[in-house]
């Protein structure tokens, strides 16, 4: 317990996420009917006994700030440590975005120096998975590695880096645009605080920004890199198409079992919603439904967030409907992603396609 410090990179920009990231970063995008993407990484850390977590942010972080608050919903509102929000910018030019993780880490170097734990886990806020981080640290210590890199058995969607791994778990090569061989990188790393500070100093001195290139590829002969094989569900979301597909996978019970394993519950901001009410004559099948909704119409194959109202006579299928959106009667909505607080007025018909779901931005009235 409390041997490891968490750092989450949560400044994901991604043009292919279109309207979904108009007012937010990828990491704070609503996901899985009641969560934000970052909840999965943050909960994985808290469930492993991590008590201090720093969140590196840049730009469009209002939605993240609003979501995380003091961190109390993750039990991270603490006198000492707990959740630390770290808005940061590159030291050399604060006006531009980070060119890589090493540049982001250099920007929060003074914070890292004050870390009270011996080990640090670095992770992406936009990777959806429920990782046993305690096991990862145990294996890191047991293997005697300098850096443990978490990976999936195969390349996961949206992630091009692969590791070639020897029988003893040692990473022999890090391939940027690999084929189907090797393990898929999940960009989650464990190392000692001491090594992390050395790497920051060295990369900063040589104007190196990329953890991937400068550390993993550049120092692979010097450092002992160990692969931790994570076999659970993992999703990296980089586009609207990814978002839609990965969301729809949640309707599969094996995926839900994996992500929502009872021993490691996913925590999120508490809203105190009532239980969802299903009206007489409503029909709701093959769907994931959060609390606080009023369902009076028909819902099929959809993911419905907290506080959504589907009026009588409305038909929603193959959709993702985010919090507090209201769908009036007579509406037909198919293959659409309705962001927060959208209003779809009476009788409208909106349809995307499974390969190109329609995104309706936050607060819009259709």
């Amino acid at each position, binding site marked *: 317990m409390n041997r490891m410090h968490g750092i989450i990179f949560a400044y994901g920009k991604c043009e292919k996420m279109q309207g979904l990231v108009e007012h937010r970063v990828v990491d704070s995008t609503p996901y899985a009917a*009641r969560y934000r993407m970052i909840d999965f990484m943050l909960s994985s850390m808290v469930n492993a006994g991590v008590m201090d977590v720093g969140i590196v942010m840049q730009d469009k972080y209002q939605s993240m700030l609003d979501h995380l608050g003091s961190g109390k919903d993750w039990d991270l509102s603490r006198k000492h440590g707990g959740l630390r929000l770290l808005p940061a910018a590159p030291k050399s030019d604060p006006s531009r975005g980070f060119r890589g993780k090493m540049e982001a880490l250099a920007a929060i170097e003074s914070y890292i120096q004050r870390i009270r734990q011996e080990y640090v886990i670095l992770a992406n806020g936009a990777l959806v998975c429920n990782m046993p981080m305690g096991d990862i640290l145990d294996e890191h210590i047991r293997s005697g590695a300098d850096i443990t890199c978490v990976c999936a058995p195969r390349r996961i969607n949206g992630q091009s880096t692969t590791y070639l791994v020897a029988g003893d778990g040692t990473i022999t090569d890090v391939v940027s645009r690999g084929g189907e061989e090797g393990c898929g990188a999940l960009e989650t790393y464990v190392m000692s605080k001491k090594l992390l500070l050395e790497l920051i100093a060295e990369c900063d001195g040589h104007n190196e920004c990329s953890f991937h290139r400068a550390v993993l590829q550049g120092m692979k002969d010097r450092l002992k890199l160990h692969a931790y094989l994570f076999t659970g569900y993992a999703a990296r979301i980089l586009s609207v198409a990814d978002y839609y597909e990965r969301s729809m996978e949640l309707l599969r019970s094996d995926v839900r079992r994996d992500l929502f394993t009872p021993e490691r519950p996913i925590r999120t901001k508490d809203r105190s919603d009532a*239980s969802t009410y299903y009206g*007489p004559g409503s029909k709701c099948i093959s769907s994931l439904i959060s609390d606080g909704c009023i369902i009076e119409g028909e819902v099929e194959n959809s993911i419905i967030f907290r506080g959504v109202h589907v009026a009588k006579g409305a038909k929603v299928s193959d959709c993702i409907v985010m919090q507090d959106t209201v769908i009036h009667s007579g509406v037909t909505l198919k293959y659409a992603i309705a962001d927060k607080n959208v209003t779809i007025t009476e009788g409208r018909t909106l349809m995307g396609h499974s390969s190109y779901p329609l995104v309706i931005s936050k607060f819009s009235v259709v």
Partner: protein
Amino acid sequence: MKKEVVAMLLAGGQGSRLYVLTGKVAKPAIPFGGKYRIIDFPLSNCVNSGIDTVGVLTQYQPLELNSYIGSGQPWDLDQSEGGVHILPPYVAQGDQGTWYKGTANAIYQNIGFIDLYDPEYVVILSGDHIYKMDYAKMVDRHKRSGAACTISVMEVPWDEAPRFGIMNVDGEDNVVEFEEKPRNPKSNLASMGIYCFSWKELRKYLVEDEGDPVSQNDFGKNIIPNMLADGKKMVAYRFAGYWKDVGTLDSLWDANMDMLAREGGLDVFDNEWPIYARAPRKAPAFLGQNAMVSHSVITQGSTIEGTVENSVVAHSVAVGAGAAVRYSVVMPGAVIAPGAVVEYAIVGEGAHIGAGAKVGAGPETAKDPDQWGIAVVGPFCCIADGETVAPNKMLDRNHEEVLRK
């Protein structure tokens, strides 16, 4: 630190009329309405009314209730000054303490707690009522009238009045007489068991009552009649809206059904008066491809593959394929296995209804309507595959039948 108002919530009753449901938990900790427990209503009312200091008097089976209340954070009652405090009976100097002998004695034993906050007014609440009420309005009425005690009352149908404590009032709603369960009621204003006292007055009466060896140390039986006899100014505060004492199995079932019909006055979707609860961390509910849910509430963590009609389903419940739940209350973690039918029943926390089992039946099926009643499966009770639990039957956690008195 001084507080104007302190609320004291009586949560120690055994709840014996809820039989198997209160075997291991105090009544206020019983799940209600899908997301809630009974105590969420008075606690949320306190916070919404601006009362930030609440003492919860516990005695009977308090562990689950204590753990549920915790720091009070879900209700925003984790205050640096005040907040929610669990007050169990305790031993004082020279073995002075005892179990709480009655409602008034419970407050008497915690005079020290109330004095810490030196309040002007103390509001006394019950932990077994479902209602939404702005206590600030009652305190306002109390202040303006200059009364020693204000009693919250509501009009009940005249034929039901003999079941209640009835307040007889004058033209200005001053209480002139109090009758406990009168055979021939003179008024239909029933006491709701919610009082606002000026603390100085109440403190004096509590001390005097404690010195009376024949007193039952009860608000309704002793404190209120004593104050009336002394000619203290006592006023009625009229409450209109939904209120239900859920102290019996039937009333608990009724109140759950009432919650489904929002126009009945118990609207938990109202953002102006939210009811807070400690919510377990659960995934969203999943409704399978053959799910049929109608006029019901379903809570997160549940998986519904069968039919749910006119029912209240709490978190982490599984309703299997081909199973049907009708006119029933299903508490957290219960499993209704495939093909089972549950009708007009209360299924306790963690109970398991085996495949093809049949629990309860509708009143229309009863030969003798007097013998009909809702079926109750106690918490963690296992009903075997294909077993039948007749209407009106009640089973405890060990599957032993318990008779209603």
